């Protein structure tokens, strides 16, 4: 289980997360919605240990990410897909995917590469095994980013606005992969602006506003007039997203 307990994070005088609580159980897909600057990406960065907490606790399968020795174990159980892909530019797609499983999980290279090829085939990139990131489109790069994360066989997949840098066509490519992963039962914590997609694939929706978790509701309830929509801030956000 992924547990976020009363997490506080500030950058200087600016409070970005203020007492956030969240639990993600295996098999769940939880989407985090909120306007820009609401703390969504910071929350993901706190969960994967890129940001130090100012208060509270985050544990992945009981491994506390604030403790260096436990962080390594926590990171073996989670994987992050980034907004700007962050692929290693000097490595082929196969090398990008195989590096961490070989070096971190100490798995045999041949076995890892075989799985990496299968992963690439599953996202329609079997012909790009030896391609370098610079020779791929944005959508293809993000699909490789997803494969790189999945190659670690994570229990929790953290997705940080993975379609924000893509055009609508490429966004559709990536969302199709994520929908497939959701159907297969992959546990995901999904920061997104794709409200309709979040509605389709999520078990729960969390809404952050100015660092405060306003609601954490089952998806249907979130979009119900008596549920999340009863909150003026959420109604305003969803209405604005519809217009955009």
């Amino acid at each position, binding site marked *: 289980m992924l547990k976020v307990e009363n997490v506080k994070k500030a950058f200087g005088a600016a409070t970005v997360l203020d007492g956030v609580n969240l639990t993600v159980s295996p098999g769940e897909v939880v989407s985090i919605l909120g306007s820009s600057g609401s703390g969504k990406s910071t929350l993901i960065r706190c969960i994967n240990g*890129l940001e130090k907490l100012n208060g509270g606790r985050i544990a992945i399968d009981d491994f506390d990410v604030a403790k260096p020795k436990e962080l390594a174990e926590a*990171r073996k159980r989670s994987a992050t897909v980034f907004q700007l892909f*962050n692929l290693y530019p000097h490595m082929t797609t196969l090398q990008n995917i195989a590096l961490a499983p070989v*070096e971190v999980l100490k798995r045999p290279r041949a076995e890892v590469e075989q799985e990496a090829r299968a992963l690439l085939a599953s996202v329609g990139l079997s012909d790009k095994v030896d391609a370098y990131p610079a020779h*791929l489109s944005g959508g293809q790069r993000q699909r490789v980013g997803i494969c790189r994360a999945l190659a670690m066989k994570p229990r929790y997949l953290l997705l940080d606005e993975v379609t924000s840098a893509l055009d609508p066509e490429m966004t559709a490519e990536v969302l199709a992969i994520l929908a497939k992963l959701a159907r297969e039962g992959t546990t995901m914590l999904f920061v997104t602006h794709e409200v309709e997609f979040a509605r389709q694939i999520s078990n729960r929706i969390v809404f952050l506003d100015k660092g405060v978790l306003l609601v954490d509701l089952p998806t249907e309830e979130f979009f119900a007039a008596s549920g999340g929509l009863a909150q003026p801030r959420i109604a305003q956000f969803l209405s604005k997203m519809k217009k955009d």
Partner: protein
Amino acid sequence: MQFDLTILGPYLGFLGQGAVLTAVICLLSLAGAVVLGMLVAIARTSQTAWIRRLAFIYVDVFRNIPFIVQLFFFYYGLPEIGIYIDAITTGVIALSIAGGAYASDAIRSGILAIDNGILEAAEVSGLSKRITFTRIVLPIALRTSVRPLGSVLINMILTSSILSTITVNELTGQAKIVASDTFRPFEVYAVLLVVYAALTWLVSIGISHLHKHLNRDLASEAA
């Protein structure tokens, strides 16, 4: 005075030996400078303050002292405290140390230019600092540092002519001997001008090709 290059005919082999020695010294020094530059660049990006300061002092000192003074200190100064090193080795060491200060700047710039997101991706995937450095940081930094390192090599070729002052008969040293043998310094040094210019021009073309080759996969074609 009549400009007559034919008088250099008998000395071409002799000058060639000097050119070969220049090339050997420069290649050895470049290897030394790159290794030293890499270590210093790591030290300059270290999280430990005293390591950063030590590296900064090294770079600052060796970039601000004339090379000939460094060379004389190593060759004429060190024997006073019982350290004797032959002239060629002294030349290679001095060029490596001086070149290392400049190489560290080139490599450090390459390291600092790496997109932070790439390092974060490595970090969250659990890669150790050692693996991140050797498999990700260094290969990218060296690729982007090829041109500035090429400038260090060119500077090294030019500076190597100073080694003739400590009895190293590299290209300039041999030329001095030919000039005193023939009493035709005009022709000898005119040829030397052309040879050094051609040498550095060829090296810069080579560096340009190497840069293109190493960075061929980093250039964006799609996206």
